């Protein structure tokens, strides 16, 4: 029996099917079926995975949003839902994506140097929202999607904590 999971990364949706037959497990992504073997490397969330023989290391950690996965040196913040839960959410009007960008957060502790937008302003993806100083450098926080600024929750020269909400969008 194939079990289907619904995943989201960077606003994109993905479906992965997983099937167990005896001692063999297979996954299906984009219609391509592969045999997999997952082996836990140590007490933590580190694994070795073989995908039709291709070898990868990865780490999986539970995160606020879903799972934080490290693979090929990269970090992926994924939302993972069983198909059933996903369909239930859709049916209850939960929207097609689980977590639409509704706010800008501070990626690390720092100091707000400059606010570059105003309430009511419509921003485009990649547009600068504000500049914060952290680790002796000034960094620009950019909009990840289109949105209309609802509230600016910080002021210039204000120190902020990691993950603090800076700006909300309508």
């Amino acid at each position, binding site marked *: 029996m194939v079990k289907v999971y619904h995943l989201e990364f960077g606003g994109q949706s993905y479906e992965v099917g997983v099937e167990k037959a005896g001692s063999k497990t297979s996954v299906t992504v984009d219609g391509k079926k592969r045999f997999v073997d997952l082996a836990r490397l140590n007490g933590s969330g580190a694994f070795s995975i073989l995908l039709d023989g291709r070898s990868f290391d990865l780490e999986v950690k539970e995160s606020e949003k879903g799972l934080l996965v490290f693979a090929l040196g*990269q970090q992926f913040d994924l939302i993972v839902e069983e198909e059933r839960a996903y369909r239930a959410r859709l049916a209850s009007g939960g929207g097609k994506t689980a977590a639409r960008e509704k706010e800008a957060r501070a990626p690390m502790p720092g100091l707000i140097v400059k606010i570059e937008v105003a309430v009511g302003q419509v921003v485009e993806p990649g547009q600068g929202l504000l500049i914060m100083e952290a680790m002796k450098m000034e960094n620009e926080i950019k909009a990840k999607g289109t949105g209309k600024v609802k509230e600016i929750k910080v002021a210039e020269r204000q120190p902020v904590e990691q993950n603090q909400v800076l700006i909300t969008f309508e």
Partner: protein
Amino acid sequence: MFKKILVANRGEIAVRVIRACRELGITSAVVFSEADRKSLAVRLADEAYPIGAPPVKESYLVAEKIIEMAKKCGAEAIHPGYGLLSENSAFAQQVQQGGMVFIGPKAADIRILGDKVEARRLAKEAGIPIVPGVEFPSGRSEADALGEAEKLGFPLLIKAKAGGGGKGMRQIERKEDFPSALKLASSEARSYFGDGSVYLEKYLHRPRHIEIQVLADAHGNCIHLGERECSIQRRHQKLLEESPSVAVDASLRQKLGGAAAALAQKAGYLNAGTVEFLVDEKKNFYFLEVNTRLQVEHPVTEMVTGLDLVALQIKIAAGERLPFAQGDVKWNGWAIECRINAEDPAQNFFPSSGKIDVYREPAGPGVRVDSGVYQGWEVGLFYDSLLAKLICWGPDRAGALARMRRALEEFRLFGIATNIPFHKALVNHPRFFSGDFSTFFLEEEKGIMDGSEAGLEVALIGSVLYKELKRGESRLRQAAATLASQWKGEARRAALRQW
């Protein structure tokens, strides 16, 4: 030779100095802040002494505490590493006044060569071309500054007069942006270096950043060890360095090396130092500044010359003669260094922090890693984001790059975001591979990491399998609980039957 050296630094460079000490049979003592009690440097040093709270201003920048600790533990010399107090002439002076040896240049050299204006004057006197620029003391009017800026022409750079390492540096494209940029740069300069004076400098078109390593002993010997190419920078922070440079042939090497050594000689320089140049597309070169300390990127020079720069620094500081002459320096092959930083490429390279859950450095032929971390280490936000330096050697540039590609793929560092994916994209980039780049490279190639989400499919599959594993485990726990309650029931029934 010294019996004990105090290392007044942290991270990978503290480890680097500890290694050199151990190979020379010198006891190494390191100072540490509360955040660094379990650091690799503390673990590897012979001795380790606490000097205060995590913020550098309460520990690693407090000269008095460090000097007191050095005296108390009986150190005869202090190695400052790079950054922190390494270019602080007052600290060098205090060390000397404390009856110890500062492993680096004389305090006066640090002061004079560390001052961009003085250094330019010396370079000019030594007949070395300099980038057009002008000093601008804090206090002069904005109008004056704008006048000077217009004389130089845009684009131009504003730098802190007393600074280094790209801190407080600003690039201005248009006249309109100048006044506010000047204000910010001056205020940054004041807060970081205690002096709001800045320096305005012409911004060359697509220059390369090429620097020359020099070594001078106390017996009048002064040589150079060839160039390092450091053009790959983001926000004036070097990310990848190599030696030699594709842009430097034997003739240019002789000119640059000669100029650097002449300047050092003229300044009566002592110990290791680096003379930075900009080299334009026509191979004209311009003096930029002097770094009066060991550079982060010194390993690439070590790998092509076979020399140990830190050991040589220590020997020079102990009064020994350089054990070779300029003619004995041989360059062999090609070396490249990638700085592995705790920075998140997905978040505009913001510093990241957290626990390193999995850590295994690449190794094997031609691979060197200078690192300050280990599996289980918590990366905090108090210090800069450099975790490790990955240096690869090959018989030629293609060989070194092939090895670097291999080593980057092999690096296992899970738990926090790093710039490893950036380096993978960089060393696979055709323009970088061809050698056709300048300090503008990363600005010109903003999309360098586009489409480099090779790990996504693995991540998708991995997370589904992880969920299945968790589900299996929780089912197992449930089954065990059911079984246990069945047993209990059975036992109760058995007990009842007995009666």
